[in-house]
């Protein structure tokens, strides 16, 4: 009862751009591993993985997805990195009633403002980051916040969610600068942050922007005066930071490869194949694909509605998904981790980068479901 007698998964990701380390070729590897681990077939139909480079462009991504579902019988699309591409891709997928398996995009819109019965958002989202990183700091008495925000939707979303958390917990936002994407020099913004009298300077940006803004913060002595919080720091970015600069920085992540034996076992397998340790998106992509295969098997069909129902019904449980369940809005709720970047002298090697400080239970990390996004039948 499988359409076209195969289960075909597309991996749409940034294969060569700034996010390619977060979920590019690595996500292809992760999905291939999932397919193999599942035995290479579901319900007797072979699993096929195809992949494409979205070049971080919404139009390219949506065109690829359109072609996959209209012309190449793709059943579900994984990867999905930048929020812009993901937004465009989910639109196409929803129209075609195919499942979007979002592993790395940060925006919470896919389960709120633009939620859809076919969206599955697995690894993390901006709300979890804000709840994870911001709340403990506000609670510890750091009330005045300054934002250096990447001037695009993801940055705005991160900033607004974090602001909400700050204000709900008795803090205040004393200033915001919106830096254009891919700004090379953040010193001007750092000076503004310095002048603001904030307790915490929050970096509502990602990737190279985070690395560069932190660099400037250290250079201009900002880190000595106030706390700098990276709201979204993936392991590759943490590795790219100057260890002296980054040491002690707090962050929230959906996965850390060195957390326990289970995570290490999978991560080492991944590293063997891919060459570097997995970032959270890689692990999420694997975990989600495994759950999808299980659901297809349980449903006895690859019909999206049936599979989605099964995915919600079955509890995901593996090295990645702890205390996890898939909510009716497509949000996968699971344990998140509050961690800090290790100082250079405590690192075994460059992979040994985080100290997990605490586990944040999924229900505290993720915002509650909106009623209008409840797709349970």
């Amino acid at each position, binding site marked *: 009862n499988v359409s076209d007698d195969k289960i075909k998964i597309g991996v749409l990701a940034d*294969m*060569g751009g700034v996010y390619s380390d977060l979920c*590019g*070729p690595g996500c292809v590897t992760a999905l291939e591993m999932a397919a193999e681990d599942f035995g290479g077939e579901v319900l007797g139909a072979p699993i096929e993985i*195809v*992949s*494409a*480079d*979205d*070049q971080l*462009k*919404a*139009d*390219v991504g*949506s*065109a*690829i997805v*359109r*072609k996959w579902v*209209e*012309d190449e019988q793709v059943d579900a699309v994984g990867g999905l990195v930048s*929020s*812009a591409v993901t*937004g*465009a891709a989910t*639109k*196409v997928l929803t129209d075609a009633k195919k499942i979007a398996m979002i592993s790395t995009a940060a925006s919470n819109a896919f389960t709120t403002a633009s939620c859809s019965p076919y969206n599955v958002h697995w690894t993390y989202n901006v709300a979890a980051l804000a709840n994870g990183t911001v709340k403990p700091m506000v609670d510890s008495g750091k009330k005045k916040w300054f934002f250096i925000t990447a*001037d*695009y*939707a993801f940055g705005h979303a991160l900033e607004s969610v974090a602001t909400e958390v700050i204000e709900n917990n008795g803090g205040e936002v004393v200033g915001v600068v919106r830096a254009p*994407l891919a700004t090379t020099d953040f010193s001007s913004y750092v000076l503004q942050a310095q002048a603001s009298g904030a307790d915490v300077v929050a970096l509502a940006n990602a990737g190279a922007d985070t690395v560069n803004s932190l660099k400037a913060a250290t250079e201009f002595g900002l880190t000595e005066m106030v706390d700098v919080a990276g709201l979204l720091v993936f392991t590759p970015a943490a590795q790219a930071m100057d260890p002296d600069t980054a040491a002690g920085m707090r962050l929230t992540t959906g996965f850390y490869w060195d957390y326990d034996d289970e995570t290490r076992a999978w991560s080492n397998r991944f590293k063997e194949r891919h060459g570097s340790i997995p970032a959270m998106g890689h692990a999420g992509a694997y975990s989600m694909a495994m759950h999808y295969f299980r659901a297809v098997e349980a449903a006895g069909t690859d019909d999206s509605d049936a599979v989605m129902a099964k995915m919600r019904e079955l509890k995901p449980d593996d090295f990645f998904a702890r205390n996890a369940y898939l909510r009716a809005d497509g949000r996968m709720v699971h344990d998140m981790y509050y961690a800090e970047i290790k100082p250079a002298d405590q690192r075994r090697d460059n992979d040994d980068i985080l100290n997990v400080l605490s586990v944040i239970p999924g229900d505290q990390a993720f915002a509650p479901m909106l009623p209008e996004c409840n797709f349970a039948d």
Partner: protein
Amino acid sequence: MKLSKLHIALLLVALVAPFVLYPVFLAKILCFALFACAFNLLLGYVGLLSFGHAAFLGTGGYITGWLMMNANLTPELAILLGTAAAGLLGALYGKLAVKREGIYFAMVTLALAQLIFFVYLQAPFTGGEDGMQGIPRGELFGLIDLSDNLTMYYFVLAVFLFGFWLINRTIHSPFGQVLKAIRENEPRAVSLGYNVNDYKWVAFMISAALAGLAGATKSLVFQLASLTDVHWHMSGEVVLMTLVGGVGTVFGPLLGAGAIVTMQNYLSGGELGNYIHIIMGAIFVICVLAFRGGLVGELQKLVKRNFG
């Protein structure tokens, strides 16, 4: 433009192609081909290198998209208005830019396009870098449903043929004759009493409007208008398409657009995605070193050598 055997053969190919290839892909090629042809009108026939043509492509797309989503218009009207908007923007930009020549012209157009990029980046209605998503394709003249890809393709083909015809007519019109003279010897054209800037300006507007038409159509095909279309990379890409196809040739931009879109399409899928930049870069280097005439230019050379 007389219909030659070549034209008829190409037209037949275009008519049957969607039964062999994915129609949306073909429609994309046609949109970019129209864009490149519009650009080539300026570069190839007036000698003006615009490095900001993305502004018009994007404007056509955004305006049409917004109208389709908010104004409840039929697609042909939305496209018409999108095209007109791009033409208006072209009128404004052209007025400023045609006063300059050579590299300065290129730079003025680039700078103006960057300003437009900024506007679209910040303006709320464009959706920022998420783009304008889920633009409905609507029903042509309120009758023909365009949501079917094949129907959409034939509509795009019709739009393209119209644009292509208009460009070729322009080149071979009394106006085109003056443009040619201006390109050859501008001071002489002035001394014959031609306000050369006005002619360049009109050519710029035509080119901008047609680029807008391409963008407008494209936004319907993909149901999306995004910043990619206004980014300077896009302005660069259209230069590449035209050069790869052959500057100042009738079919060059069409072929160039086809080649580049196909290449991107092919490279972005699967294993090669990783190498896309390396391979594209290598192709450009090789093209420039060995096939400067562009595809059409080299073909013409080959034909001449073997049959001429």
